[in-house]
């Protein structure tokens, strides 16, 4: 006896179709609305930044704006030194932070005894919750004076100080995501490698880390996004001179710092130029994330 005949024989009617459908449609709509919040925000932000920034591009010229070496509002709008500062501070942070983060992730996922991992992991997660202004304090009190002493320079507010603070700031993101992706690997990888007589460390570097590569790269992408977008801590430790830094022991101003520091008093074209700085920043983030995603897709098999 199938369901329909059973229902009939019991004298029951099938539930009316409409009531069911309204509930379904309502929730589908609700899901869609929620999903739209993110998409709408991103497009609104993009539209406003472009709208406000374009006059500066028209006034100064895109090429002059991006490659100009002098930032002297209202006369000269060249942000090349800031592009360089943003790239170097982010790249430096990645070079220092990512290896430390990956090794920490391996330690947590593979090597640390449970009690130690349970001690280190909350500490790392706490690091993620610290406001960036507090990182700035930490940089000012510890790193800036340390650089002054170590390199014997008058002012420690340098590109290097920014690099170190950023390297620490990206740690929790990269660690957490890398650890999760290493833990998510099926145990057969590790067992397979050990069963061939490989050492634990060899298995980690040759099998586990490569196998978890796509997850680790995602962590790195998020870390890069955080580093390039970081503002407050950078303003506090990097000196902010809008000139081309000659070395990492000189002050520098990033794209984000440029916007945050001058927005309060900028008017007219100067204000537009800050929005245009935002366009360049957005372009960088899209480019970086895009290339990491591409790398991820290409290499994953």
């Amino acid at each position, binding site marked *: 006896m199938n369901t329909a005949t059973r229902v009939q024989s019991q004298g029951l009617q099938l539930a009316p179709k409409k009531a069911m459908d309204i509930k379904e449609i309502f929730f589908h709509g609700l899901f869609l609305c929620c999903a739209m919040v993110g998409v709408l925000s991103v497009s609104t932000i993009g539209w406003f930044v472009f709208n406000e920034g374009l006059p500066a591009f028209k006034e100064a010229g895109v090429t002059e704006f991006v490659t100009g070496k002098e930032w002297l509002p209202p006369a000269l709008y060249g942000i090349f030194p800031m592009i360089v500062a943003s790239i170097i501070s982010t790249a430096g942070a990645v070079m220092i932070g990512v290896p430390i983060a990956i090794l920490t992730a391996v330690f947590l996922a593979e090597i640390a005894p449970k009690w130690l991992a349970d001690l280190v992991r909350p500490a790392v997660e706490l690091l993620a919750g610290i406001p960036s202004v507090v990182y700035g304090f930490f940089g000012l009190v510890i790193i800036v004076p340390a650089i002054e002493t170590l390199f014997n320079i008058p002012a420690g507010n340098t590109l290097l100080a920014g690099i170190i603070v950023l390297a620490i700031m990206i740690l929790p993101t990269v660690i957490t995501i890398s650890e999760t992706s290493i833990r998510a690997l099926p145990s057969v990888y590790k067992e397979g490698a050990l*069963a061939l*007589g490989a050492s634990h460390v060899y298995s980690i570097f040759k099998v586990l880390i*490569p196998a978890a590569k796509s997850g680790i790269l995602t962590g790195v992408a998020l870390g890069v996004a955080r580093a390039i977008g970081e503002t407050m801590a950078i303003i506090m430790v990097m000196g902010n001179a809008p000139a081309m830094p000659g070395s990492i022991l000189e002050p520098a101003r990033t794209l984000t710092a440029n916007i945050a520091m001058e927005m309060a008093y900028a008017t007219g074209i100067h204000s537009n130029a800050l929005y245009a700085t935002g366009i360049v920043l957005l372009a960088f983030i899209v480019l970086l994330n895009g290339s990491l995603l591409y790398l991820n897709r290409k290499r994953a098999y």
Partner: protein
Amino acid sequence: MNKLQVSNLDLFYGENHALKDISIDIPQRQVTALIGPSGCGKSTLLRTLNRMNDLVAGVKITGTVAFEGEDIYADVDVKQLRMRVGMVFQKPNPFPMSIYENIAFGLKAQGVKDKKVLDQVVEDSLRGAALWEEVKDRLNTPAFGLSGGQQQRLCIARAIAMEPEVILMDEPTSALDPIATHKIEELMDELRKKFTIVIVTHSMNQAKRISDRTAFFWMGELVEQGETQQVFNNPQDSRTQGYVSGEFG
């Protein structure tokens, strides 16, 4: 001659007494099948033979496992033991790298860098696992591109690249279709000439087809062991009889 000799082995996972007073001899260049229902301890025993159980937290082992007369749970180099006692797993587990790199992995882990040596071993191993003809033109492509049966033969090739003396197989065909299973069984018939094989299997027909000796496990106990013909045709224990006749398990 006995390649492996297990004597009075007890194994505990925490409170769980998983293997109870097991004694079994594994003769050289023969196929020994371990059969029994799920959870009977057959895979656990297999994993004590190359100390893979070391990876499990809270495992406790008493008794001895002798490999060529030497107790492997004494102070020995586990890496070396695992080179001499290789293993093939239930699910094909190629590494996420090329076919070539999969086979060369074990040797590279030992520091072998000579390209000529590696090339030769890769070819020999793939021939030994009856896979060479199928993959010789795409050695540098990802191993995941192979079918399940090919992947399992790749894993066998990877194991024999280390020139082990014993190969442990943990239900090597349970994830494969009948045709791929048949190929693996044919391959095992070749392998038995060079290697001592211990295989855990759920399929009694497979045990009958490929093994010289069979051991039947039941709830952590080794109930019966002997020549495969004898265990299947003339079992001494009523539990063995019930299991091999398909009454339960």
